[in-house]
């Protein structure tokens, strides 16, 4: 363990993780799917306008990826700070 486990640095690190992930969350859904939809529609993905596709499917795929990333990053952060718990299942 390189760092002294401390709850306040754990908390600020986890806030950073959440902040990063939620920015992407906002960008892929509200950004690509709604606000910049018309602009992105000039590009196509296999025949589908990109903004439209992001709103119907792309954003959902990104959401799942975000949650997998969240679990990975938070578990790593737990280990670093010694808050890890062994899982038996």
């Amino acid at each position, binding site marked *: 363990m390189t760092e002294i486990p401390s709850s306040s640095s754990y908390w600020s690190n986890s806030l950073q993780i959440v902040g990063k992930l939620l920015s992407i969350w906002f960008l892929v859904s509200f950004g690509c799917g709604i606000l910049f939809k018309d602009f992105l529609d000039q590009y196509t993905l*296999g025949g589908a306008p990109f903004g439209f596709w992001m709103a119907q*499917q792309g954003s959902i795929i990104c959401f799942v990826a975000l949650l997998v990333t969240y679990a990975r990053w938070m578990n790593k952060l737990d280990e670093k700070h010694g808050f890890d*718990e062994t*899982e038996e*299942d």
Partner: protein
Amino acid sequence: MEQTTWNFIFIGITFGVYIGIAIWSRAGSTKEYYTASGGVSPLANGMATAADWMSAATFISMAGGIAAAGYGASKFLMGWTGGFVLLTTLMVPYLRKFGKATVPDFIGDRFYSNGARLVAVICAIFICMTYIMGQMRGVGIVFSRLFDIEIWMGVLIGGGIVFFYAGLGGMKGITYTQVAQYCVMVFSYTIPVIFISIIITGNVIPQLGLIGNYIKDGAEKSVPLIEKINQISTDLGFQEYTASTSNTLDMFCITAALMIGTAGLPHVIVRFFTVKNVKAVRKSAYWTLGFIAIIYLTAPALGIFARTNFVEEINQKKYAEAPQWFKNWESQGMIAWVDKNKDGIMQYKAGNVFTGKPVYADEKRVEGGPRPVSNELADSSNEVYYDRDIIVLANPEMAGLPKWVIALVMAGCVAAALSTAAGLLLVLSTSVSHDLMKKIINPNISDQQEIRYARMASFGALALAAYFGINPPSSFVAKTVAFAFGLAASSFFPTLIMGIFSKKINKQGAIAGMICGIGFTLSYIVHFQFLTESKDYWLGISPEGIGFLGMFINFIVAFVVSSMTPPPPQRVQELVENIRIPKGAGKAMDH
């Protein structure tokens, strides 16, 4: 074999499984009843939560809604999935660490006030009640179609089954039943779509349909499916399938309100109290969304396939040569054709055929002719009416699949309605037995008494839900969706967020925030949904999206009031410190 025989076989088998699981996993203690003792594996919990989340409405109506609205329906797709990102990153790990059985429990303890707890209990009961009514109605409709019985009988049968395994098994029984229900749902939803996908795009993976080519006219004439549907839509006088909605602000607000509402729905939050520790919560969350995504990625593909198929098979075809499924669903009252120009050919175009739902005239159907309707005809030249729900229900027939697939889809509808109803029933009964009876009215009741109250409460709630399922207040159920999400978005979500991420918010702030948030949202919804016919919305924001603003009002009021009143006591601040650290959640469950 007859269709009804297949229906009996499929419904019979699935019900046998659900009841078997309920008996096997009967709950003995309140811990098991409320949260399955926190011992469910993340994968199983993911499936169960997905089944709980996807209601009869999602299962039956969503694809039809997408087929009709095109891009405009994206708000539901994004809203009902994106909420899980908020839920996972901002709430459930911390609430699981806190380790109590219900959401009002957290609000009551964090804001050290039974007043806050009571407001939370009332919200939870209201949200769940509005939701469960729609489910009971859904069960009733499916049963009445399946077995040719009255809707009220269908509602009672469905209610009886739900009471049996939710009341008996508690969370443990519900969770394992929902795992089985998810499997039924996912198969019954995707199998017909796979076949349609092969016919229309030649691809076995239906989810890729949106970016695939339309090959039904032969390989040399293949065009991107999206291009094809836009072409068809504009030819018939609709706007392009991919066209943007007229009001971006409204689209933004509705999407946001659905996401925030999702993250604040008590029956979704409590699902994550059933796993072992915080690490398992995170894992369970991505499994949940992954399982939901399988169906949510299929729905837009199904929508586009079904719409293309429907137009190609029906438009400009002679009624006498219409496919059999068209006439079957016409007999069921979900399709109608009015030969306005008397040419014997069905013209499908933009615009209403007639006003409202079809009312069938008493006169006998001429052999080989359409079912006459007595509605007042609209001006448009559109002659074909169809209920959006047939997009899913008639899907197997449109694709020419065997009868057992139709029975499977019916079993899927029932599974979707039952799983959601059971989850809601559990939250309702816990709110009454645990939060109201034990925490507010009489703290001295024993474990056994508490379960008894829970079972009594579920019986009462179900009876009420069944009553409204049988006698729905006209179009009330559809409107209550705005209520449930608006309430969750303006009450639970902001209050829980502040409880976790701020140590300064005190009980006065939380209560004032909740009351102002709910008050604003409710009065806006009631005004536009019930008191006036006008659609003169403020800034064009429809009632479905107003919860988003309600959330901000809750936040602002809570901060202002908290800054003018004494800060929370030291022990509450320590509690907040404590829930931010994931370690030790398992212990919290045992004490």
